[in-house]
């Protein structure tokens, strides 16, 4: 590839300014659109880095960009997705350049169709076994061309991939016995790689044909949406919670730089002064004891929050991993302490089974009774609640038309040092229908919508930012 002036991409771009620099800038712009924080300094770094590597090499080019632009794993993931999509156009241009070569090869294959399919089949098999990516990509293109001539293309990428695969008689070990005995089975991993190439090439063809690119927006919603499936999210939840733990634990230390409200410890100062011949050169402060958080978590596990309760349970699970002084309760109609289960069980699936099985939440009607829950909660642990305790409620505040007993909730809030509410519903839905969020929210130190780990992190940030004063 030449310098930016003789850019292979430039002329083919619709609307885009020519040149690599502009190209990169608009790539960064798209990254920003997806929520990756790309600053000017990152862009400058990227340029500096690209000067150092032979960026004609696809891998080096990509890695150099990633190292300077994507600064976390999440960013990296978005980067990969976008990189593929964005440089699609350039890859397409590349394909056009090679188009001639392909046509020439195509001619070769036009002669005797049947025979060539066989030959191709053999070549593909060879490439797959060898695991040569470049070869596979070229062959995928050939296969698509040959396949297209036979007029079997359906126009749907996923379907075509499977059809081509079948016509090439490629099968993994398990299926091979059924189709053809003589050919050795192919490693599943390798076959998937070939299929990926097929898919990419087909998509590229589709773009060429229709002249439009796949929509660039949905990435944010589709690929990045955090599912609430437990195992996938567990690690992220744990990370957010352990962050919360750190923040809570070092809460007292934050003003260290300013040394606000320091109290001189006379005894220690005098002792220290012995070192310097009785001259108190260094003042010693009374140490600030970090607050030991006592945390009470109340978690709604009723049917109205089914989708969220898995997420909530994983939050609870992570909390238990991090905090020693933590008591957790689940509730539907009545309240039930589940601290023990969490303390003795590590496996998440087992926990969710036991919580639902022996949680003993008196699931008669399956409807939440918040009023009763507060009464019971207050009755059970009112003595233990103190200014040091933090109460966290996970629930949707849907009372099913029963008495909300907000005044009891107010008492809980009054006794506890801090009280937070995490609601699995978007703020928009609060107070609609039987949700009485407003009645409770007044007494909370904070109410947050929370159904993804991102929200959880936001919550952690807010909690940590709050002053220590109780």
């Amino acid at each position: 590839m030449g310098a930016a002036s003789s850019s292979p991409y430039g002329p083919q771009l619709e609307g885009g300014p020519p040149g690599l620099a502009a190209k990169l800038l608009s790539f960064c712009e798209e990254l920003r659109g997806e929520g990756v924080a790309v600053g000017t300094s990152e862009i400058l770094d990227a340029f500096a880095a690209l000067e150092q590597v032979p960026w004609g090499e696809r891998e080096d080019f990509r890695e150099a960009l990633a190292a300077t632009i994507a600064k976390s794993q999440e960013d990296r993931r978005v980067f990969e997705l976008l990189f593929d999509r964005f440089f699609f156009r350039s890859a397409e241009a590349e394909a056009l350049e090679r188009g001639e070569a392909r046509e020439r090869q195509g001619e070769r294959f036009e002669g005797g169709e049947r025979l060539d399919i066989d030959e191709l089949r053999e070549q593909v098999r060879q490439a797959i076994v060898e695991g040569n990516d470049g070869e596979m990509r070229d062959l995928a293109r050939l296969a698509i061309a040959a396949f297209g001539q036979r007029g079997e293309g359906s126009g749907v990428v996923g379907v075509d991939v499977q059809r081509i695969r079948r016509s090439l008689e490629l099968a993994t070990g398990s299926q091979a016995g059924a189709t053809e005995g003589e050919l050795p089975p192919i490693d599943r991993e390798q076959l998937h790689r070939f299929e990926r190439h097929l898919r990419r090439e087909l998509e590229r063809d589709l773009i060429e044909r229709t002249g439009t690119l796949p929509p660039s927006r949905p990435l944010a919603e589709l690929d990045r949406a955090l599912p609430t499936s437990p195992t996938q999210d567990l690690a992220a939840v744990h990370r957010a919670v352990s962050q919360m733990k750190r923040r809570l634990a070092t809460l007292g230390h934050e003003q260290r730089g300013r040394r606000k409200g320091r109290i001189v410890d006379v005894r220690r100062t005098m002792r220290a002064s012995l070192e310097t011949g009785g001259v108190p050169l260094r003042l010693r402060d009374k140490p600030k004891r970090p607050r030991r958080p006592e945390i009470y978590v109340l978690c709604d596990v009723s049917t109205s929050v089914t989708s969220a309760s898995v997420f909530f349970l994983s939050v609870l699970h992570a909390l238990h991993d991090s905090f020693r002084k933590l008591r957790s309760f689940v509730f539907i109609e009545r309240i039930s302490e589940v601290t023990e289960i969490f303390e003795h069980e590590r496996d998440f699936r087992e926990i969710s089974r036991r919580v639902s099985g022996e949680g003993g939440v008196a699931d008669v009607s399956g409807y939440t009774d918040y009023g009763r829950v507060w009464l019971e909660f207050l009755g059970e642990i009112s003595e233990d609640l103190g200014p040091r305790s933090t109460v966290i409620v996970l629930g949707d505040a849907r009372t099913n038309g029963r008495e909300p007993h907000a005044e009891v909730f107010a008492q809980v809030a009054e006794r506890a040092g801090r009280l937070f509410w995490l609601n699995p519903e978007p703020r928009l839905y609060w107070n609609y229908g039987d949700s009485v969020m407003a009645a409770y929210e007044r007494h909370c130190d904070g109410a947050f919508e929370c159904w993804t780990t991102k929200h959880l992190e936001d919550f952690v940030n807010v909690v940590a930012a709050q002053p220590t004063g109780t």
Partner: protein
Amino acid sequence: MSEAPTPGSVAEVRDALAAVDYLADEPAALVSFLAQRLGKPILVEGPAGVGKTELAKALHRATGRELIRLQCYEGLDEAKALYEWNYRKQLLRIQAGGEEGWGEVHDDIFDAEFLLERPLMRAIASPEPVVLLIDEIDKTDQEFEAMLLELLSDFQITIPELGEVAATTMPVVVLTSNNSRELTEALKRRCLYLWLDYPDVEREMEIVRLHAPELSETLARRLVEVVHMVRGLDLKKPPSIAESIDWARTLLLMGAEDIDRETFEQSMSILVKHRTDIDLVSERVGMKLGEPAGAAGAEKTES
């Protein structure tokens, strides 16, 4: 500023690292190369035991630069990381000085002589090119990170009484993080980012065989496959590369020829180091391994 020789190409860096027994993958080699060429710090993140710290050590061995290491922990402050005035010595100087004027004494006691250099200061002031390893930066407080910013972008430290101390040679800075908390944007902005993950089977096999050369290839493959299987479980602490190497050496000592259930259960404690993990692993992985050739292994299921 940079007298230290800089590598010419990515391949050169990879070979140099390989020569000191560190098998870098493509991104790691590229980032190390860029770091030396651009003079930017590297921020390495990844799970525990994938060779983050080792990368810095390998760079030190490969480039012949001195290695200066700052181990971070909660509550680390500038006095321990940057510099501190040597109060006692200053006091002595004042007492010994007799009836000098204040001006002279003042100029004198805030001199480099009375400065206690800590790792960061040492790295900056060193006349020889160095590799500065700031290990587990995520263990420190955010304030400490903020303090690092000046160092990382300009390679200089400002001491109020002395002025700025700038690096004479461009240090290679490696920061490692276990990702136990999100680092600030400002810090990340100044670094090249490298995510190290557990290596794939082939690479790990190479690594294991590099460190335990007597191990036969088939056994090495089997071993690495088992380790990968173990990592696939939801463990408190998945086995690191160092632990697979330890395990390989253990197997050599035991004279094992194949990994069957019995050898696995005997040597499992090398890989897995939590009570609950051990139960899980012996249940899931132990099952999949074959029974020892001769005797039928007695089912041990007491807990």
